[in-house]
């Protein structure tokens, strides 16, 4: 093991889709990003390699509403590795209409420090 490792990412900054190469230094304390066409890609490669995060949007069951599902999202991005777990954790949740947009549906989901919030009003049917 040399400790040097190379990882590949597709830049999402624009349709050019530069293929980024991220190389960790031996100590694993820093990275070098190559293959970018502009600064956006350079920053994206670093972020995506060291701390990738996503906003999770899903829906929960709602009773007595205009629709059967209430859309929700995380109030901020969560670590990419937790996306599936976050979605699974809210799957059994059910609420009753009416619900106002912005209402916290699950607080501090899986200890991530972010809440699952309603992204629309759900009026009674």
């Amino acid at each position, binding site marked *: 093991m040399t400790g040097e490792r190379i990882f590949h*990412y597709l830049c*999402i900054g624009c*349709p*050019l889709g530069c293929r980024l190469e991220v190389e960790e230094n031996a100590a694993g304390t820093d990275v070098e990003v190559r293959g970018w066409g502009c600064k956006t890609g350079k920053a994206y490669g670093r972020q995506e390699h060291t701390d990738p995060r*996503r*906003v999770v*949007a899903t829906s929960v069951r709602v009773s007595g509403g205009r629709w059967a599902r209430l*859309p929700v999202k995380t109030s901020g991005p969560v670590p990419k590795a937790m996306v599936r777990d976050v979605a699974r954790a809210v799957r059994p949740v059910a609420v009753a209409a009416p619900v106002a947009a912005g209402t916290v549906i699950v607080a501090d989901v899986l200890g991530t420090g972010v809440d699952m919030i309603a*992204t*629309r009003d759900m009026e009674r049917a």
Partner: protein
Amino acid sequence: MITPEVRQLAPRYDVVVSGAGPAGMAAAVGARERGAERILLIDREREAGGILWQCIHHGFGLHHFGEELTGPEYAERCLRQVTDGGIDVLTDTYVYDISPDRTLTLMSGSHGMRQVRAGAVVLAMGARERTRGAIRIPGERPAGVLTAGLAQKFVNMMGLLPGRRVVILGSGDIGLIMARRLTLEGVEVLGVFEIMPYANGLNRNIVQCLHDFDIPLSLSTTVVDIRGRERVEGVTVAPVDQALRPDMSRAHDIACDTVLLSIGLIPENELSRRIDLRLDPVTSGPVVNSTMETSIGGVFACGNVVHIHDLVDFVSQESLLAGRAAGDYVTGRRPPADNIRLLPGDNVAYCVPHTLSTDREHVVYMRVRKPMEKCTIRFGDVFSVKVRYVFPAEMVNITMKPKFLENFHGDSLRVDVVQR
């Protein structure tokens, strides 16, 4: 809660907007801004907002609202503007017919068959998804073959899962979004198959909807057979050659119970055809001037009914313009007529609007036919702009300033995108 429904239907309105999706909502707001008083916004669904309600993912609004929103959040903001503007919203109602004198025949769940007259009309019916018939996939006709957008409505609004093992045909953004959405609901997504050698969706969706969940994307590959008696039991996929002919010797079968189609959108112009609006054969939408007015005076059009947009933000911006022009029309303000026609040239599929005036600034939207890097967009010899790249999947928009046209005296401008 915002439900600005109308109780009484008047026989006459200043502006009637057909379709209350993002285009219709912005158009109604634009008409109000310019002093139209009685505005009626009509939609066939049970609530205004259009497709945005089912697009529960995040990533809308960066251009128009300056922050990233989910579809429902974007819809609520637009709807708030509609309510604040005191605009009448009539849902559960279909605009069944329209005459050139702007009399609309409505079929309404709450009001029955009615006619209303409009000082100006804005067509904002949007688009519908291409279905299996549009690409003639051979095979049987079992249940379980549906468009990605319909599946999105089932999952995100109605709480129904379309199946357990899903194959997605076409790499359009809705298909990619649904690959992730179904995965998060515990459905197995076996792969996305795209007949072209490149993906149609945004790189962001390739990464965040497919790579994040290890969902394979097969380019230059298509579905050549769908099997199943009652319900889909499987599909056959095969790679295609450069002429898009499948190579059956390399075909293989996949067992699945659902096929989602994400193969493009078609503007919904049935109403436009009823009054014989001039349509552009490339966009399949109405030909419009720089105020988004169609070939019939007082009839405006905006959003996906005119040309398919890739970002809702541009739909809102274009529609605000259309609505303002409709407002000007009914309050008697007429801008100078357009005097320059735009002619799509090299590597330009179309330009919207189709004509320009020289007195004010315009945004020209256009789509290219093939990808190009390091190129120049040329408007005749009056104006050119260098761009790093163009892609067919990404609409180009160029701001045309009056000073560029100061010394131009022709009546048409050819638009070319050329390599530097």
